[in-house]
């Protein structure tokens, strides 16, 4: 009760800061019954200094991952991509040649997600990264409800092994739920795998 009041209050305050009325749909009540799983690839792990390279997202409805409606966008960067991060996300400078400006990319993402609940693995980080661009653009932070997959996983596991140490690594979760690891690390790929874990946990 208190939380919902507090959340409502926060949401209202957030909405009041919205600079562009075109995006007021973000604050509408979600009636689609869908979730959006998002994942970002970044130049590093510090939202203060690092930048987004690409964003991937996929919708979930009931028991289906709507891969027919995936979202993928590459974002233009201010600096050269460090060779260290290339090893992880395999996004080479040439891949971002046709990338969009960060403002363009964020706007497209917002149109894709609407007011749906967001799902992700360490979603807080992805949200922070997105907010880093969103705040200066529209004056707001992502208002969507968020579901943390690793938290769901923790709850499911702790019920079976109450005193256990729960390994929350992504690969461990994939193995645990017998989810195919399609190899290549990219935003859409990771989002789809996260979606699979989410579906298993949800059912």
């Amino acid at each position, binding site marked *: 009760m208190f939380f919902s009041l507090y959340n409502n209050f926060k949401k209202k305050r957030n909405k009041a800061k919205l600079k562009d009325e075109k995006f007021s749909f973000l604050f509408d009540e979600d009636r689609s019954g869908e979730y959006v799983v998002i994942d970002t690839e970044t130049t590093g792990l510090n939202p203060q200094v690092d930048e987004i390279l690409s964003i991937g997202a996929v919708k979930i409805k009931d*028991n*289906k*991952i*709507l*891969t*027919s409606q*995936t979202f*993928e966008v590459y974002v233009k960067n201010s600096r050269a991509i460090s060779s260290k991060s290339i090893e992880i996300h395999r996004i080479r400078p040439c891949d971002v040649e046709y990338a969009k400006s960060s403002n363009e990319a964020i706007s497209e993402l917002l149109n894709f997600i609407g007011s749906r609940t967001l799902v992700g693995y360490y979603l807080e980080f992805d949200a922070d990264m997105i907010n880093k661009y969103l705040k200066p653009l529209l004056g707001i932070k992502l208002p969507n409800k968020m579901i943390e997959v690793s938290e769901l996983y923790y709850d499911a596991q702790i019920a079976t092994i109450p005193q256990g140490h729960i390994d929350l690594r992504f690969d461990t979760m994939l193995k645990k739920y*017998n*989810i*195919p690891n*399609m*190899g*290549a690390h*990219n935003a*859409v*790929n990771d989002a*789809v*795998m996260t*979606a*699979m874990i989410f*579906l*298993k946990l949800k*059912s």
Partner: protein
Amino acid sequence: MSILDQRKLIESIHPFELLSATALENLMKKIDIAYYPKETLLISKSLPSIAFYIIIKGSVAEFVDDELHNVYSAGDSFDADALIYEKCESRFVVDEDLICYEIKKEDFLDLMQNKKVQSYFLQDFVTRHQHLKDYAAQSELTPFLMSRVSDMFLHSACVVESDESIYNSLVKMRDAKAHVILLKVNDEYLIVTDTDLREKVLLGGVNVNEEISKIASSRVISIELNDFLFNALLIMTQNSIKRIVVMHKGEIKGVLEQLDLLSYFANHSHLVAVQIDKAKNVDDLKNVQDDLKNLLIILNSKGVKVRYITKLVSTLNIKIYKKVFDMCVGVELRDKCALIVMGSEGREEQTLKTDQDNALIVKDGIDIEDFHMPMVQLNSYLLELGFPVCSGGVMVSNVFWRRDVSGYKSLISSWVTSLNEENLKNLSIFLDAKCVAGNVQLLNELTDHLHYSFHSRDDVLAHIAKAVLNFETPLSLFSSFVLEKNHNNKLDLKKGGIFALVHGVRTLALQYEIKETNTIERIKQLNNQGIIDKNFATELMESFDTLSSIRLKAMLEAKEMKESNLINPKNLQKIQMDLLKDSFKVINKFKKFMIFHFHLNMVG
């Protein structure tokens, strides 16, 4: 996974690689991934299919009338029929948590507009259902339509010169056991039938010394050797004739009789039996051999249970043995001896020719030497007929296996007292002895003696039974197969299961003095005597049948004899694989039963 990875996966699944790049691109935009937990019902009679599923992970079982029909796993797809024909006779149930691609019904039907994709799914529909039909109905119609004239037994044709006299022609016809006389006039064959003889010779007064061409009436109606039997039947019906001349490359190959044609469809085996009876020499019998193999293939493809096939083949083989026996042994000696077959032949479980295991029992007081030459002759005939030599020398040509009754009795006594490996082997095959020719009383006397000798000798019986544990059942803890590393990862059916079952049942039969030699019959008797319950008996019989039928398939396909017990489980259909696994589980259960029954864990 990225769009690219998905595309690769879809592309790797037939027939999607046939799509053009743009068509595939469009398809990719329509594919979703779905998750279904275990036991979700996807399609059934009352639950129409809404999508085409391609499995990424997990498995789905298809049931037809509550019977497991197929299992689909990663990379498999289903079910085009349900979408195309908008109905489905089977049930698709998730067997293991399923992650799959879904192509929505409309999108799938759109895809079917592509001719290549369409032909794949439609053709697949036909072949798959052909399979279903063979499996379920064992339809008589298919072999009927598929059989060719060359599959048939053809009567020899009696061809005479056109200037031969009627009398001589008739003599030739009688000798050839033919029903019609054929003669060649100006590159054309004419036929003389019974009707011609009756009308023109008996009633018309033509002298039997006249030329045969005088009474020949009609031109021969013929059919090519490679033509379908169905056509032969049609021609006969259309022309209201009872026989048709079979030609091949312009030459007469024989005459096909309507009676044989009809009985062919009624009972193939009948004809083989007739041929054996008719055989006058070894060469005639040789021809029968080929027919026997064809018979096997036909019956097996019709889905007839292997135990009936082997029974039939054994019956026919016994006929051959009898025939050869009569050719070699003089009339005066025939009831003074008994020709017995042992091992798989004795059990009537032999399918293709396996080593000959035979022996001769001579009546006490008759000189065994009298049979020396006839038996050597018999052995060589059998070799000619393609019964392979027994590597262990268990053959009538070997003096060891040519004894009089008391000779065998002392042999049996020696088996009871000392069971070395050699003796155990001989005892095992002798336990399966069956009399095929001569005086059956001689064998009965020995069987009684055998049972008498082993009565209450549980210690000896335990030693015999121990061989059941000689080979591990090739099934791992996790229900997967253990393969023979030195045989290209194949599975040895004989070592792995058949031997344990056959030998165990054989030992029990000896203990309980059961006279049957056939494994199935022995199991039934053991059940009748209350040694094993009905459920277990049925399990054992079904397992035996499964193992034998997979083995028969391997034998028919094997190029070399020694390879014929080995199968590659990867070549099996899923349903067969599961049946095989279940059979091995039953074999393991049987081994445990034997250990308990004979206290084998106490036998050193």
